[in-house]
């Protein structure tokens, strides 16, 4: 019975939050973009006009044509339809974001919880100093270095970005955890003999969720940006993989004449990142957070 009441309350607050979120036009636009991009990414093979263009495909008779009814975003120098490649490119971008975040959030958050709870002890010092080392490296440099020593590929790029990303979650949760640790409800749990893991995961963590969630939304955008930068330089996805960053790099050579080869993929990147940024901002406003 108590469970039911709790569940009901949670649903209620979820509904209220959704209502508030949807009142903010900026968030709704962001949500729209993100959903659109996700939909396209998931169903790319079914909705692209020319799905086989996403892989190895060459047709020089159709090459380098500007936007037309047949090819809404034009074709590149190999005759591949850019719109279709963009659809598939979304897959890689979203995948990058999803993989990196799923690798990074859990360890980062757990470390932060522990370090914050044990603030002032050697556990805290060790964890945070290691975090500092990773944070001391200018963000992209580490990713580049790692990418470069391993053969460039999407997978390695994701690993590299993950390695440099987890400290941010640790730092965020550390701040929250160490201040929450002194709240009454935590002390109450301690006094009644709750186990450490209960305190960390059932008392402190739920209060961090909104910040973590907001950061994750914003981070999707950042990771995609960084991923596209890596690909642009050649350290990420390799041709003929239709990655948006690689497409911009390839297309850059043909500016300004065949502008569509670079511009449309660039716009695609921007829309995706914008969408995540907007919903992240929406969450930030919704939860009234300051330091995410």
């Amino acid at each position: 019975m108590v469970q039911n009441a709790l569940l009901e309350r949670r649903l209620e607050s979820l509904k209220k939050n959704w209502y508030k979120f949807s009142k903010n036009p900026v968030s709704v636009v962001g949500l729209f973009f993100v959903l659109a991009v996700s939909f396209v990414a998931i169903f790319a093979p079914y909705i692209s006009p020319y799905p086989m263009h996403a892989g190895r495909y060459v047709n020089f008779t159709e090459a380098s044509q500007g936007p037309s009814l047949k090819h809404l975003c034009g074709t590149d120098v190999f005759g591949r339809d850019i719109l279709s490649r963009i659809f598939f490119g979304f897959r890689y971008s979203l995948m990058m974001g999803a993989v990196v975040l799923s690798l990074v959030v859990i360890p980062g958050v757990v470390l932060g919880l522990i370090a914050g709870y044990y603030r002032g002890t050697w556990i805290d010092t060790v964890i945070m100093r290691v975090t500092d080392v990773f944070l001391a490296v200018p963000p992209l440099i580490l990713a580049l270095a790692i990418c470069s020593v391993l053969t460039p590929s999407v997978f390695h790029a994701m690993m590299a970005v993950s390695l440099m990303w987890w400290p941010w979650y640790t730092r965020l949760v550390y701040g929250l955890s160490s201040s929450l640790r002194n709240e009454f409800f935590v002390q109450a749990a301690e006094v009644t003999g709750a186990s450490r893991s209960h305190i960390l995961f059932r008392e402190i963590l739920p209060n961090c969720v909104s910040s973590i969630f907001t950061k994750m939304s914003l981070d999707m955008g950042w990771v995609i940006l960084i991923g596209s930068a890596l690909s642009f330089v050649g350290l990420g996805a390799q041709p003929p993989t239709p990655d948006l960053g690689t497409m911009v790099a390839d297309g850059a050579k043909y500016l300004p004449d065949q502008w569509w080869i670079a511009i449309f993929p660039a716009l695609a990147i921007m829309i995706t990142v914008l969408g995540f940024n907007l919903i992240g901002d929406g969450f930030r406003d919704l939860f009234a957070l300051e330091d995410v």
Partner: protein
Amino acid sequence: MSILKFLGKRLALSIFVLFGLSVLIFMIARVLPGDPVRMALGSRAPQWAVDNMREQMHLNDPLYAQYYYWLSGALHGDLGQSLFTRRAVMTDVKEFLPATMELAIFAGIIMAVFGVLLGAVSGRYSNTWIDNSVRIFSYIGVVTPSFVFAILFLLLFGYVLNVLPTVGRLSPWIHRPPVITGMVSLDAILSGNFAAFGDAIRHMILPAVSLALGGMAQEARITRSTISDNLRKDYIASAKGFGVPERLVVLKYLLKPSLIPTVSILGLDFASLLANAFLVELIFNWPGFSRYGINAMLNKDLNAVSAVVMILGVVFIIVNILVDLLVAWLDPRIRLGAERGK
């Protein structure tokens, strides 16, 4: 207490961090598949040459020995030989680092000054058309990869409008200033060569602005929200209520507390400047450190890669310390430690 102790603590921490970083990057650079020496010498080089080089570079020694050689060399200013350029890495550093630093500093100034300015104006006139345009601009700035900006600017100002140079640091017809710091614009001023100074600045504008836009947008957003929050604070209403003239309230009592969050992220934004520099350097053919680093990475040039990462790490740490000092100066609450009273 304050400044000296603070500085001391930070320096000690930084040294520890640098040490950790050096170990980390060393591991990464060494523990890799493929044979860097073979790559450098080419597949047709005789085995004895490869073996010789490996011996020379201590590559057959245990890892900790290798680390020791590298570290002691580094502390003496010897960063080893670049496998690619065949020169001492230190020479490469001296040649390329100032170019990137010059660009980064210029971009950093643009980013900080215009970011704060835009944000302040936007926050002061919040919800007007000024505010809305700045907000749109800053969204665009944040989501657009810097290489996109670089390409667009190159096209627009370099080719279409043809008003700004797009390649290199100085036009060929300019008399080169002597190399004092390596930073051309600075050297030009120091030696009184104003023509060169102007030319150098013109060459820097496009790459620097492309670099700065992302950070500028960030700073503008944070400044804007801080200012519009602080405008409603009681201490501002109180100052106005006591008759302090509006101009003083805004320029002094509003500005100083509002700068704090902005300055705090300056360190991070500067880091992203350094990181994104490679994109811009590639596009504008700027002979800079980041481009050198990328090439080193693509060519698996061990020593160069280690050196690049370490040096950029040092720069980043220094910038962060400076930023922390600045924040502590701005905000006495941090300087004076924990709060007493309610």
